[in-house]
């Protein structure tokens, strides 16, 4: 009986490609797969390491120390009145999601090619799960940040916890868009594999991680810098920590730019999706 009911209920078509819709209901149906792919990547990442999850905090911690010594102490980069370690770490937190998330998700479609060629599931799960690994790492980095603030005796203002989710969303949206875009392009043109480390290296200097955005004086330059959505994200985080107000126009530019990147990423991904198995 139930078999027959099922037959009436489920009916779908397999057609030539050309459907650009996100098909959210299908993604929801496969929601557990997001979890399993993320879980797999996290497990595998730390399985053969001696220090295990300690790496998640060790890496940003060492970066913070090196930056604090060189940029904070020796070069005396201004830090908006914050202790330099807190200042640089508040940027690094987001930056790490961006850099590791982009690396993971940009490569994800190629590294999971053997699965893609053998079974169907909504392909978008792959770059998103790869990004979720970096978001998971962020939880630890954030705890480290709180610890750091306590050690240097900096009390985090409450408003920071309002700005943080905003900055975080902006970071995730940007990384998602760019990561998805690159993962799709990577399947088609392996050239993009080499551009990812390059993009990350360059944008570190174009993003106010080690310096405050206030060193840019001209408004137009500010707007131009805001095209990089990571600028907006880190500014939000810093504005939460200091009592400075947020420049609304650059923030809107960053938000819009992130949105455009995300939409573009999804579109290109969807367009390539049907052929992944043939190309990979």
């Amino acid at each position: 009986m139930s078999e027959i009911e099922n037959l009436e209920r489920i009916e779908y078509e397999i057609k030539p490609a050309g459907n650009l819709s996100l098909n959210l209901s299908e993604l929801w149906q496969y929601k557990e797969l997001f979890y399993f792919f993320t879980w797999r990547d996290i497990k595998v990442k730390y399985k053969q390491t001696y220090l295990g999850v300690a790496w998640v905090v060790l890496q940003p911690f060492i970066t913070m120390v090196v930056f604090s010594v060189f940029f904070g102490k020796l070069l005396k980069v201004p830090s908006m009145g914050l202790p330099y370690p807190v200042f640089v770490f508040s940027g690094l937190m987001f930056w790490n999601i961006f850099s590791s998330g982009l690396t993971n998700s940009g490569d994800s479609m190629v590294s999971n090619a053997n699965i893609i060629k053998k079974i169907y599931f909504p392909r978008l799960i792959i770059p998103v799960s790869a990004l979720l690994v970096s978001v998971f790492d962020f939880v630890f980095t954030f705890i480290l940040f709180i610890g750091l603030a306590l050690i240097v005796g900096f009390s985090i203002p409450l408003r920071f916890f309002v700005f943080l989710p905003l900055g975080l969303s902006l970071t995730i949206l940007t990384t998602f868009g760019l990561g998805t875009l690159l993962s799709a392009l990577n399947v088609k043109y392996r050239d993009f594999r080499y551009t990812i480390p390059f993009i990350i290296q360059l944008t570190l200097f174009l993003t106010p991680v080690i310096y405050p955005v206030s060193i840019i004086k001209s408004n137009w330059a500010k707007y131009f810098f805001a095209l990089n959505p990571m600028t907006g994200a880190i500014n939000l985080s810093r504005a939460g920590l200091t009592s400075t107000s947020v420049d609304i126009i650059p923030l809107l530019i960053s938000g819009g730019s992130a949105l455009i990147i995300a939409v573009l990423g999804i579109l290109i991904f969807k367009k390539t999706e049907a052929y992944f198995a043939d190309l990979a």
Partner: protein
Amino acid sequence: MKPILEVKNISKKYRINKEGAGYLSLRDTITDLFTGKKTSKKEDFWALKDLSFDIYPGDSIGIIGRNGAGKSTLLKILSKITSPTEGKIISRGRISSLLEVGTGFHPELTGRENIFLNGSILGLKKSEIVKQIDSIIDFSGVEKFLETQLKHYSSGMQLRLAFAVAAHLEPEILIIDEVLAVGDAEFQKKCIGKMGEISKSGRTILFVSHQLGIVSQLCKRAILLNNGALVQDNTPASVIDFYINNHQSKEDQYISENSSKEIYIRSARTLNEKNEQTNSFVFDQKILIEIIIKNSSVARGVKLSCTIQSKTGEYLTTLIEDLEKFENLGEDIYKIKIEYPAKIIAPNSYAFRIALFFPHGKVYDLVEMICPIKIQDNGSNMALFEGVDYGNFILDYKVVN
């Protein structure tokens, strides 16, 4: 009853990059953009052309055809891995496909972890896996190693674990690619038993295999593809028969280059019951070998021996005949045709050894491993073990109590 699967005019085009690389490089595309012509040589290839058929609930269908016939492409389209270029498929049930056992298995994870990962990739819910985990572990027979990393498993163990997970899928339509071609005989039997169970429970199975014996045992219907088109759609027995007689190579007859000997084997070829030359037989067909010799000698008492050799060259059975039995075709040319009985020689590959000799004396001509033949299983008692080297003869035995 509505078909559970309607395949309507499906075609699939691939662009073959003649340079060999499957992917493009950005440079090629950019060069093309500026020069306005294609630097990369590409060719269209239709893996499937205008394929249509219906499948009804509870059907078990075997898809056969030689390599490149489009079987895998069809399975990939049905499992939504790749999309068709033209046409559409209407499906009225959940499709699970097993194009590989252990898809997504990760060597660094333990057996138990891989059950969850593989299960969820195959479309099982976590709760369903939790509910069935004991049964999965039991089926796999690797319970001792569940907490061991998969990289320490033997390939047989990995396969057991993978199939155990797959066996617990409960889709309305199950698509299986030659996953059974591996694994030991006992496990194959277990898998085939499970598949039989699935098809009896009213679910629909699509099964691609080279192992014709298994197809005829397991399926009620068979589809033969050739060059991306449907050639036959009928009962397995008739489709397999058609396939064997029409799609195998007709070469491999032996022709001697050496004509200086006074007595020599001029040619030899194998024939089926209808006297058509073939090197491919089914288990219940007689095998004929036709040998033509040239005898310009006056020597009397010369004999011919004909031996069936296994694919590794061992002598399995030999017969010896007098040249007097040969039919004289004139000009010192003689012909003999020998018929071997059906249903004795086990499905496998064989060849022949033919000699012309004087007993306890001179050997005039001797050739080995000529006229290779392949006997396909079309439902012998041993069909489940096809591909396993279980011997060379299947005798008509009795169980006596």
